[in-house]
């Protein structure tokens, strides 16, 4: 299968290893992976800010460069949700673009749901230790991602998954919210860090880099220098992706 990997602007800038891990996993699943060279950002920041015009421009740009692919895979629940659920709604009044948005939406998957759908796929990596999984909001409530990453992770040899309490509770990231209302955001992520600390796992794992940066940033500030904070793709792909 020839598919497009949409790495997302945050992975591009903040953690390229998540992009390379995704690439390796998709190739391991037997896919021919193209990284469309014009991709930048899905436009979610503009949409969230309530600035429709640039959000629409960036949506159209993304649709134009991704629609030729049989499948588009995104290592972020939040960006996948934006493409799949928000684009069609945003462009609903424009018959041509609405059709194109719906077509792309139907072909777009978040990475864990895509991998979980591939028969016989098992992660190439091993992981020595316990992890706990944080469900990011957009993936969980927008796309219904819950069991997929867990299923994939459970098959990693050496890995044991220990759930934290309130794993579905928001981490307080919320994009611009985390900067605009920094103190509120910190208060929320502090509670998340407390539940992570209760589990005492070697790593906290999730599927959205924004949330992971938020959690890691707060853990370190709280003085926890050892709990690793990883994207599930990094765990599944292993090594120095």
């Amino acid at each position, binding site marked *: 299968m020839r598919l497009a990997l949409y790495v997302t602007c945050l992975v591009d800038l903040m953690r390229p290893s998540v992009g390379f891990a995704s690439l390796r996993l998709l190739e391991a699943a037997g896919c021919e992976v193209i990284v469309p060279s014009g991709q930048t950002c899905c436009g979610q920041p503009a949409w969230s800010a*309530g*600035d429709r015009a640039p959000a629409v421009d960036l949506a159209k740009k993304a649709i134009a460069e991704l629609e030729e692919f049989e499948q588009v895979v995104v290592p972020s629940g939040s960006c996948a949700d934006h493409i799949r659920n928000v684009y069609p709604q945003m462009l609903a009044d424009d018959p041509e673009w609405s059709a194109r948005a719906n077509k792309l939406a139907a072909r777009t998957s978040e990475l864990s749901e895509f991998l979980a759908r591939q028969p016989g796929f098992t992660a190439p990596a091993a992981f020595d230790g316990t992890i706990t999984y944080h469900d990011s909001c957009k993936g969980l409530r927008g796309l219904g991602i819950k069991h997929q990453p867990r299923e994939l992770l459970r098959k990693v040899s050496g890995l044991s998954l220990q759930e934290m309490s309130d794993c579905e509770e928001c981490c307080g990231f919320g994009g611009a919210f985390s900067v605009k*209302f920094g103190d509120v955001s910190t*208060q929320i992520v502090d509670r998340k860090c407390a539940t992570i600390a209760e589990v005492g796992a070697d790593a906290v794992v999730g599927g959205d880099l924004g949330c992971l940066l938020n959690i890691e940033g707060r853990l370190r500030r709280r003085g926890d220098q050892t709990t690793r904070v990883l994207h599930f793709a990094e765990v599944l792909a292993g090594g120095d992706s």
Partner: protein
Amino acid sequence: MTHAKHSQAMHFQARAAEKVRNPVLQRALQKAKPLFVGKRAKGMAALGEDGLEFEGLRSACVDIRNRVLADLDVWLAIFEERAKATGAEVLWARDGDEICDLVIDVARRHGVTKATKSKSMLSEEAHLNEALAAAGIRPVETDLGEYIVQLAGEAPSHIIAPAVHKTIHEVEELFAKEHGRPIETRTSADIPAMAREAREVLRQHFLSAEMGISGANFLIAETGTAVLVTNEGNGRMVTTLPKVHVVITGIEKLVPTLEDFATLMRLLPRSATGQTISNYVSLLTGTRQPGDRDGPEKTVFILVDNGRADLLGSAYQDMLRCIRCGACMNHCPVYFSLGGHAYGWVYPGPMGSVLTPLYTGIENALDLPHASTGCNQCGTVCPVRIPLPSLMHRLREAQTERGLRPWSERLWLRAWAWIARRPALYRWFARRAARYLGWLAGDEGRIQVFGLAPGWTEGRDLPVASNRTFHELYAARKRA
């Protein structure tokens, strides 16, 4: 929009900063949250025992509320006619000031000097207690939470648990002062005794007040009935003991039939407190008839618009389905970081972040629609499926359309979006940004003070894993 003057919603940012730094408040909130969430979850899980199912019930509730809103004028006319037929008087108020005028007028006509109150959010919208006091009528809140909040000279911080922000020690101090006794050391085991103490004080008021003021959870059109859903029984005292009973409620609270009310009741208490049914459900229809042993001699309905009619047919109409269960705030990470007072007006949490700008003016509550992480925990639990995050988003767009966002924010966004449409240029900037972040982060791999986003690094580090972007590494790899 007469109530913009009472709203403090423009000070959200500053109030929020104060609330997150208040350890007493934080303790109270952290204690309450798991109770709310746990009770609702249990209540919903038990639906199956009664052969019910959440999504199906939800759809039924949505349909009922939508049916009312589609022909609200007709249902209101039916209600008015039926209520009058039972001997009640039906009055209409456009805004809070009119509510106050009407209540004071009724009070004067009946020589009222004291009014007992059971919970009414509309009376908060109208600042009725202040108006009554100014008119020489003493308002006495009788819901335990409202009583506490009134003693403290505060506003409720939650729509169903008005004093959730108070610790037991704060309540003890208030009671000791009001009830003229020394302060004692209290634990949660003393709560029943404290409630009894308040009840004894309130009993005198129930017996001596000439007027009772209540809200209504629903108005039933076919019977002209007001429904009160409560847990403390004070509502019954307020609505049956005084000679005059005034019901103040929003025009959107109508439901067509008793059957519809029964359907909504399946989800209201479960969403609010996890109860299958609340301790008291009162259906109040008309005035005392010959042979009745209790009930008011006079019942007055004050049906209030205060911004509601403007939402009919608008992009925000869904909000009028709200049945005020409080589930949205009970599941909101922002609410539980701040409590209700930070929101600055009557309604806190997600429903407040939508209602406050709509009822007091979008320009008077600029932060509220942005004070959300977009987690949609609210939308997931709302029993009438109100898409709260979408409505907040619509309000953000309205702010942009009306030029209410700071120009610097728009400039940044537009410049960023302009660049993001030009991949080569975007790559160039991203590479520079990665170098810069990498340099700031140093060997530690994290930034502790970041001038471009101080809000982030005030409470968190910014982890930086690489000073190269994915796309430049990928291009290099492909060349190799």
